[in-house]
Each structure stands twice: as structure tokens, then as C-alpha cells.
């Protein structure tokens, strides 16, 4: 109903254009801390959208995405530090390694449903974390990898911003295209009713696996991009806390809307910076409370909530015969 409405579509297009313009022009207005924050939002938003391909569209709750993110992060950090490879090749390697691990983990997990899937992906994510944490010789263990050198052309913060923005926008575009192809439609069908979908001759598990691999590919890339931003890699970013953070971004923003996770990610990062600037170390408590409140009050997410309200509004308007 809402989708057919021309005025809503026009509003959406206008909002999109405004957002794109804003993102292009911001580096002229802000710099330093705020630009850094904006880059964090873009990367987390991209990560959340990639996770949402599995969660919102595929109906699989992955609690281990931080593992694949971490693989991208550490591979980018290691290669930038110890090899002279060109940056695009490094990022591609990072993403491919994420996707490779995603293939192995996904192969073992996609046969399982609902919470089995969540717990198993969580276990594998933590396995990746444990290996990174313990393999001191390669990953530096708890100390992580610091002082990652960036290529010459990214030394300027504004260039880095546009580099990250361009890659994220391009990849989000690809994901948008994927969810609107027949593959994406079938994936959503497997979420809605896997038995019926199986009955019309679709191999559900294969679709789930492909979606999982695509998602982990982009998760690896998001990790690689984050390495460019932070110039370091720490095991904390691979732990289940990170998986939970990105999962909450998806739910907070709304899993059943394409850009919902991005909105959620922006909210999360802004809230974190706000809370930590007032109470330095009470962030876990606040974050925990947000989790609980979201679960109890708005499980459909912010965008889902707004959409519901809008739909109800439109319905009442139509009933009373008034034109919106």
C-alpha cells in the first residue's frame, strides 16, 4: 500500500538525494573528531546492511558476524604493514578471506534453524576471536596491531572519507541490487515459509548459503575499511560484543527496511559518543538498557515503527475520505 503511493516514493527519492548531497558536502563543514565519527557511522551502517541481507532478508540470526569483520580487519592490517601490495588488492583479499570463512561456517550452519543457527554462528565467531586472541606471533594477541601505515593518497582525512564513502556506497548499491533480483525475492521467500518454497523446487539451503557468503564478503570488507580508519586492529573488535552491536543496529533501525540498519548504526554511534562524553565508562549499562528496551518496546525497529504509524495514518485518511 505504502509502496504504491507516488507521494511517498517522491518523498523517499527527495530524502535520498538530500542525504547523498549532505554526505558529499559534509567534509567541507566538519573535520577531525566529527568526520571520524561520520566515517564510523558509514562503516558500521555498511556492516549492518550486509548483516541484514542474512537477517532481515534471509531470516537467519547471525551472532558471529564480528568474526568475519575481524578477519577482514586483521588481514588488512597485516598486509598493509608487512606487504607492499596495492590497497584495492589488499581489501579484495580481506573480503575474500571473510567470504571463505563464511563459506565454511555457513556450510555447517545453514541447515540449522532459528536459534541453533544463532548459537552456532556465535560459537564460530568466538572461535575466530579465540584464535586471533591467542595467536600472539601473528596477531599480537591482546596488544593487537598498531601503527598500520596507509598508502600516500589516503593520508589526507578528506580523501580517506571520500574513499570510504565511495566504496560503501558502491557496495550498498550492490546489496540493494541483490535484494531486488529474483535471488533476493527467493531468499525472502525462504524466510517467510521455507517449506512452501522448498515445495516449488527451490533449494533453500543453497540460497541461504549464498546469501551468507555474500554477507560475510561485505563484512570482511567493512572490517578492512575500519582498519583504514583506525589504523590498528584489536581483538575487542572481533568479540561477540561487536556482533551484538551490529545486530542491535539492524533491529534498532528496523530489519525489514533496506536502509533501516544504517539508521540504527547512526543512532548507535551517535548515542555512544554522547554517552561516553558524559559518563566515560557507563556505556555498557546504557547499551544493555537499550537492548532491553528495544526488545520489550519496539522489536520492529524505528523505521518499522514509523512505517506502521504512517500506514495507520494513511488507512484512517482513506477511510474518512480525505486526500492526504
Amino acid at each position: 500500500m505504502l509502496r504504491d503511493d507516488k507521494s511517498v516514493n517522491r518523498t523517499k527519492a527527495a530524502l535520498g538525494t538530500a542525504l547523498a548531497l549532505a554526505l558529499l558536502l559534509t567534509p567541507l563543514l566538519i573535520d577531525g573528531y566529527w568526520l571520524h565519527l561520520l566515517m564510523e557511522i558509514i562503516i558500521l551502517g555498511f556492516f549492518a546492511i550486509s548483516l541484514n541481507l542474512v537477517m532481515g532478508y534471509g531470516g537467519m540470526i547471525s551472532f558471529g558476524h564480528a568474526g568475519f569483520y575481524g578477519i577482514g580487519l586483521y588481514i588488512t592490517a597485516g598486509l598493509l604493514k608487512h606487504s607492499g601490495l596495492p590497497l584495492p588488492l589488499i581489501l579484495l583479499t580481506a573480503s575474500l578471506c571473510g567470504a571463505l570463512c563464511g563459506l565454511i561456517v555457513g556450510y555447517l550452519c545453514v541447515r540449522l534453524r532459528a536459534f541453533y543457527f544463532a548459537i552456532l554462528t556465535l560459537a564460530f565467531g568466538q572461535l575466530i576471536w579465540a584464535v586471533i586472541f591467542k595467536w600472539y606471533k601473528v596477531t599480537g594477541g591482546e596488544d593487537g596491531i598498531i601503527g598500520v601505515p596507509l598508502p600516500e593518497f589516503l593520508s589526507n582525512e578528506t580523501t580517506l572519507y571520500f574513499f570510504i564513502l565511495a566504496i560503501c556506497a558502491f557496495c550498498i548499491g550492490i546489496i540493494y541490487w541483490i535484494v531486488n533480483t529474483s535471488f533476493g525475492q527467493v531468499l525472502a521467500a525462504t524466510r517467510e515459509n521455507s517449506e512452501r518454497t522448498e515445495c516449488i523446487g527451490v533449494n533453500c539451503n543453497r540460497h541461504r548459503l549464498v546469501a551468507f557468503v555474500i554477507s560475510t564478503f561485505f563484512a570482511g570488507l567493512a572490517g578492512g575499511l575500519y582498519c583504514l580508519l583506525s589504523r590498528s586492529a584489536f581483538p575487542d573488535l572481533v568479540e561477540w560484543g561487536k556482533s551484538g552491536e551490529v545486530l542491535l543496529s539492524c533491529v534498532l533501525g528496523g530489519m525489514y527496511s533496506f536502509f533501516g540498519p544504517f539508521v540504527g548504526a547512526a543512532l548507535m554511534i551517535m548515542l555512544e559518543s554522547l554517552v561516553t562524553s558524559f559518563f566515560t565508562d557507563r556505556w555498557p549499562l546504557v547499551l544493555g538498557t537499550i537492548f532491553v528496551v528495544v526488545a520489550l518496546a519496539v522489536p520492529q525497529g524505528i523505521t518499522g515503527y514509523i512505517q506502521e504509524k504512517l500506514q495507520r495514518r494513511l488507512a484512517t485518511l482513506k477511510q474518512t475520505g480525505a486526500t492526504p
Partner: protein
Amino acid sequence: METIFLILVGGMTKASIYFLVAAGLTLVFGVGKVINFAHGSLYVLAMYVTYSISTGLFGGGPYSFWYALVLTPILLGAFGCIIERFLLRRIYGKEHLVQLLLTYGLVYIFQDIYRLGWGVMPKIVPHTTFMGGSMSIMNVTIPQFNLFVIFCSAAVFLALSLVVSKTSFGRFSRAVAFDEGMCELLGVNTQAVYTGIFALGCFLAGIGGALATQLGVVHLGMSAHITILAFILVIVGGVGSINGAAVAAILVGMTESFGALFLSEFGLVLIYLVMVTVLLWRPFGLFGKPAF
């Protein structure tokens, strides 16, 4: 030979603690159908409570730990009732994702509560003098306490099996796990069963946490590891099965101990290999049924 025997006892001690945690989780999981991510946090809370009771309340006397061992599970059980009544009750039957979010949020909240209440430094509960010595079996010196832990866990296993199979509470729980709506129609107070099961789960985590304080230090970063391990045990053993939890705990405890011997730090990886092998062979766990 002596090394093997020592590792065997070490593995069984670990398995005993794991069983106490996993048994509570599997009950909550099997009956309440709630995915409780905060179960490991409750176990860590039990460790901190034990520390406070045995050092603070009883001033570190020779029997202070034993008082704590009795009091902690009871306190945890009562606390479990409160959590169940005010939070979990709202999410029964909701989507898995909602349950994950809520209990995962509790993990964060608990994490900050430990930090507020007990600080960031690791805590050590003083070792008891009673049962704190060691004894020798077949020329191998073994800490008495390890044997006590194994004994406790075995006793809990027997008691739980009896409660589930023989008492009316156990029968109600199994009936509620099977068909909640039908139970309500027949006049079973399902809410009370849910509260009881959750309290029982917390009680078991309390015993496990209290015992575990004598085997190592208490620190902030523990809950993730034990939570994930407990879930692995539940999945390997099969949801809702106490026997499954026991077998899985022994399997994983042994794997961890022997893995540490052969692969040192990477022994952890073996646990995951065991898990994957079991799940490839039986996707619903050793003792699980495909229903849930």
C-alpha cells in the same frame, strides 16, 4: 600414566562445573523455550556473591566458604525469580530475536554491575582449610576439593533426574514443555512452572559458580566464555535433556583437558571440532529430538 590420571581428574572437575551451568540452561531452554544469554552472567554473579559472602559477611573464617556455598545458590534462585517475573515473563513465545536482544542486554547490564560492585581487579576467594588438602590415589596427589566438586555435580545430576522424573513439579515441567496451552486448559499454573524452572536454573548456576571460586580467580571477562560454552553443551547434548548435558559436559571437559596437553593454547579449537562433528552426525544433539 600419572599425568593421564591427573588430566582425567582435571577434566572431570571442569566437566562437573560445566554440567552445573549447562543443566540450568538446558532446563530453561527446554521448558521455557527462552534463549537465555545471561545464564553465564548469572554464574559469574554467583562467583562474585560467593566472594562477598565468604570474605565480607563471614570475615574469612575457616568455614566461611561453606556458608557461601549454601547461601549463594539460594540467593541466586531468589534473584532468578525476580528476573523471570519482571523481564522474561514478557518475552515467552516471542520471536527468538527478541529473546536474544533482551537477554544479551542483560549481559551488558550485569557486566557493568560487576564493575560497579566489585571493581575491575580479579578477586580471589580464600581457599578453605576443610577439604582444602590433597590426597593420593594410586601414588598421584589430587586436591581433595576437585573430588568434592565431582561428587557434588554427580549428586546434583541424580537429584535433578529424580526431580524431573518423579516429582509433580518435574511432571508439570515436562508437560508444559510438551504443550503449554493444553496444560493451561487442564488447570496447571504454567506461570509458576516457568518461574520455578528459571529459579532452579539460577540455583544450579549458583552452585556451579560457588564451587568454581575455589578453582580459580573471578574476573570481569569470564561471562562470554562460559555462556558460549554452556550453549555449546546444550546444543551438543540436545535441548532440554539433562542426560545430554551431562554427557556433553564430560565430552567437552575431557576434550579441553587433553587438548591443553597436546595443543597447549589451541586446545580450545578442539571443543569446536567436537561440536561440529556431533552436529554433523546428529543435528539436534546427542539426546535431542528434532521437534524444537
